């Protein structure tokens, strides 16, 4: 590797506009803060990376580097074969010291991969890392303008000029840190909440588990045996409850609900009111939502009456108590699910039905079971096996269509099956409806208090459906189990452990650190406390507080992600985003519009 010989051309450089960046946001500046740099000279170093041939292969990097050196405030520039290499980084560090740089601009690839590296380089050379500006001339330029060398070179110059303009106005910043109270609150004491609480307790954290009912266990208290394992649901959940009660780190509050939530990650104050205890405040660092789901009572579907036409949950009860007297059983699936009013598939009711159908065939001599379904959701290994097992046991599977649903009438179920092409009239003494899981009552209240969203079905809405199924957009709050979407016990447990894992990250550290790229009330005078910002903030990071000057917005820095919607919504322009100030962005835009002079 032969680095370009250093070519400094200080003499030719435009005069730096010392002191006062001229292109400040128009009009009189209400903002009283002084530019940090203008106190002294602004000395920018610009580094243009070749990225091997990735950049230099498609544009003239040397030309860009020479150009950069002519820009206002740039005292040094150079191109590197690979700025990210050991040599490239050392080069930056040396230049900072030698040339007394107080701003660094690197024009290279993407901040997504390399910003931390260059920031660290600045820091190691004694420069605040927020005085670093990254310009992307690879993804945004060389890669998309292959074969247009001149245009690509010109665009790279534009981008660098803009970067330099912003760099001139950068200010040193410190990361924001807050302590995290090393305790957790888990809302909901079903299998998910129990598992999550236990897991956190095993890591040493104190947990408060709030359950609305008198007893822990959730829906599994009413279930007979579990698919696919065949173990008793009651025994299974009882053993987990026992562990929870034994744990010295878990405080269980039954017959209790959450009344009010204040605070943010690391420091929540949650007031819990209990029927049999005085209400009290729980101080915690993180919150896990495990409020579960209940089976829809299939009122209005297939003649449900709770006696001759019952739900799967009722059947579970009969089986558990040995009270099943019927012998000719017809199960109708998707009762209240996958219909226009409730589009979703509840995932667990096919398997619940197959489980119970098989059990009846096994334990009730001479029983017949017909299972009327639309699509059988036996996904995976064990479920498909259970289905084959049920068929082998003599459970009769009859397909029906949404357009032509089964009709239940005194002692018979009429169904026409598109798969067999037959009309059937099945004699029966018990119809069992598999109805879907629906979110528990009160989910909205929890959602409102925690400022986390629900979806259109009132299940909790996670941060990202694919990649962050247990997180909310708001840090410090997590979700697991059927509160999030219908799930089997095993899926609920995975999610509960997963939520515990995510929650334990801030708990273990004992602090959270956030980038100081956050919203700030730059003009308190102007703020009318209208609350628009608080209403639009997706992270619950803005609140309206009473001050002696009336209601004002207050930013919760640790909760803020710097997305800027609050600033955009503020008609008084009282909110700004630090590190992306109006001045900085304005300067960038003006630098672009100004073109090469």
């Amino acid at each position: 590797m032969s680095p370009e010989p250093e070519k400094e051309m200080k003499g030719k450089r435009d005069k730096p506009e010392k002191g006062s960046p001229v292109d400040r946001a128009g009009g009189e500046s209400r903002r009283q803060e002084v530019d940090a740099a203008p106190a002294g000279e602004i000395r920018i170093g610009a580094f243009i990376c070749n990225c091997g041939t990735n950049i230099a292969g498609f544009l003239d990097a040397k030309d860009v580097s020479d150009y950069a050196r002519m820009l206002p405030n740039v005292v040094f520039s150079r191109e590197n074969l690979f700025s990210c290499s050991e040599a490239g980084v050392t080069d930056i560090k040396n230049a900072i010291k030698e040339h007394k740089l107080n701003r660094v601009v690197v024009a290279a690839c993407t901040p997504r991969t390399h910003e931390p590296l260059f920031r660290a380089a600045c820091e190691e050379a004694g420069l605040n890392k927020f005085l670093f500006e990254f310009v992307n001339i690879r993804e945004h330029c060389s890669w998309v303008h292959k074969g247009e060398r001149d245009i690509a070179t010109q665009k790279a110059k534009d981008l660098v000029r803009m970067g330099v303009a912003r760099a001139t106005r950068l200010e040193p910043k410190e990361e924001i840190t807050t302590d995290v109270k090393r305790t957790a609150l888990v809302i909901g004491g079903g299998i998910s909440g129990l598992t999550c609480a236990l897991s956190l307790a095993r890591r040493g954290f104190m947990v408060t588990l709030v359950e609305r009912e008198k007893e822990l266990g959730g829906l599994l208290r009413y279930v007979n045996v579990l698919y696919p394992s065949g173990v008793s649901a009651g025994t299974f959940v009882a053993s987990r409850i026992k562990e929870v009660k034994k744990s010295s780190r878990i405080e269980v509050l039954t017959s209790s609900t959450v009344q009010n939530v204040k605070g943010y990650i690391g420091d929540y104050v949650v007031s819990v009111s209990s029927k049999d205890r005085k209400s009290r405040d729980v101080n915690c660092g993180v919150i896990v939502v495990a409020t579960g789901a209940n089976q829809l009572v299939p009122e209005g579907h297939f003649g449900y009456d709770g006696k001759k036409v019952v739900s799967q949950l009722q059947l579970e009860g009969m089986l558990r108590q040995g009270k099943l007297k019927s012998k000719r059983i017809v199960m109708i699936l998707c009762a209240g699910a996958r219909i226009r009013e409730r589009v979703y598939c509840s995932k667990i009711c096919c398997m619940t039905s197959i489980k119970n159908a098989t059990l009846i065939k096994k334990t009730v001599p001479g029983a017949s079971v017909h299972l009327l379904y639309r699509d059988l959701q036996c996904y995976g290994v064990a479920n498909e096996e259970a289905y084959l097992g049920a068929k082998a046991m003599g459970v009769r599977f009859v397909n029906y269509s949404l357009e032509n649903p089964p009709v239940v009438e005194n002692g018979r179920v009429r169904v026409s099956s598109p798969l067999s092409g037959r009309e059937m009239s099945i004699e029966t003494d018990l119809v069992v409806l598999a109805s879907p899981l629906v979110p528990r009552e009160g989910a909205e209240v929890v959602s409102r208090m925690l400022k986390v969203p629900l979806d259109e079905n009132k299940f909790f809405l996670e941060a990202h459906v694919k990649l962050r199924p247990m997180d909310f957009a708001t840090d410090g709050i997590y979700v697991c189990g059927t509160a999030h979407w219908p799930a089997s016990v095993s899926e609920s447990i995975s999610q509960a452990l997963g939520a515990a894992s995510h929650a334990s990250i801030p708990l273990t550290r004992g602090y959270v650190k956030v980038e100081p790229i956050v919203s700030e009330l730059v003009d308190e005078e102007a703020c009318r406390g209208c609350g628009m910002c608080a209403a639009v903030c997706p992270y619950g990071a803005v609140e309206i507080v009473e001050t002696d000057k009336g209601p004002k917005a207050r930013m919760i820095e640790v909760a803020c992600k710097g997305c800027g919607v609050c600033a955009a919504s503020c008609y008084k322009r009282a909110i700004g985003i630090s590190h992306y100030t109006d001045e900085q962005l304005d300067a960038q835009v003006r630098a672009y519009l100004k073109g090469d002079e």
Partner: protein
Amino acid sequence: MLDAGRHPNIEILAYSEVESVKGRAGAFTAKVRRKARFINEELCNACGDCMAKCPRKVPDDFDMHLRDRRAVYLYFAQGIPAVATIDKDHCTYFEKGKCRLCERVCQKEAVDFEQKDKILNLSVDAIVVATGLDVFDPTPMTQYGYGRIKNVITGLEYERLINATGPTGGHLYRPSDGTLAKKVAYIQCVGSRDLNYCKHCSSVCCMYAIKDAMLAREHDVEANSHIFHTDFRNVGKWFQEYEQKGKDLYGINYVRGRVGEVQEDKDGNPVVWYEDTQKREVKSLTFDLVVLSVAAMPAKGSEELAKILGIELDDSGFVRVRAGEPADTSRPGIFSCGFCNGPVDIPESVSQASAAAMRVAETILPQVKVASG
């Protein structure tokens, strides 16, 4: 992937395999073979100069052999670590003792033909298995014509075709004559739910077929798709809504019925013979391209790996986890997550992965000391 690659607590040993594991939870020793890349990982910057010069073309396995790579190659553009590898089995120098062009052009002097496999003995407290899946090769199911009829491809091959960074830049050029495929059929449960091949339901193929058909339409408004399915298994969050959207907004035709046979007409178009179970007739439809939603099964080599680790597998070859502890294998200290535990999609894999991480933390980390009060 990037996050993992950048994390200070994660060391990635790519191009490596575990050869033996001794010890117990809290004190395992794992013998790991780091296969020689013949490239110095410290020096290589993945600039690609070597690949530009390498004369030897090899079918690209990442792109499902739909295009060629060179003997020195990056597995795929975003791969971590971003380091080139020389494929010893196809390299001209290793074959003929002459060439070393890559060595000459590499400005970082990263090419190292003397590099040897390295054996590492790692001391670890816990092990997580996450070996995922491989797809079923449908060649033995001759009725579908895979391998015989050029325009019959697998779902994974389709994923590469429709991918903007894939061999056709995201255009559905069909293999036989390179024309744009407009009428596409997806055949579900190929090798899945089939006692002769894989008994299990692969869980993800119904959804990815819908996704693929949607993508075809997004690329080309004239694209028209048929999905031939048995039970249509779309059970995850918003999957029914997705299915509905596929029908209403993307014009996908869902046909319930198993396909009996795929034939080829004189123009190379695949002809799908199927039983329309709703109408109870045997019918045929001619397509430009047929995509087989082939079964997904445990990754190749997972049986040997299970022996090395001393963990149990189920009859289908997936890792057997303990009831009530979905991240625990049969051996204490060894955890598992993702598709190797049984068919799961991405969100389920993600939550299982976090669960496995939590179980590791619970098992091996000292408890955090929390001052009471």
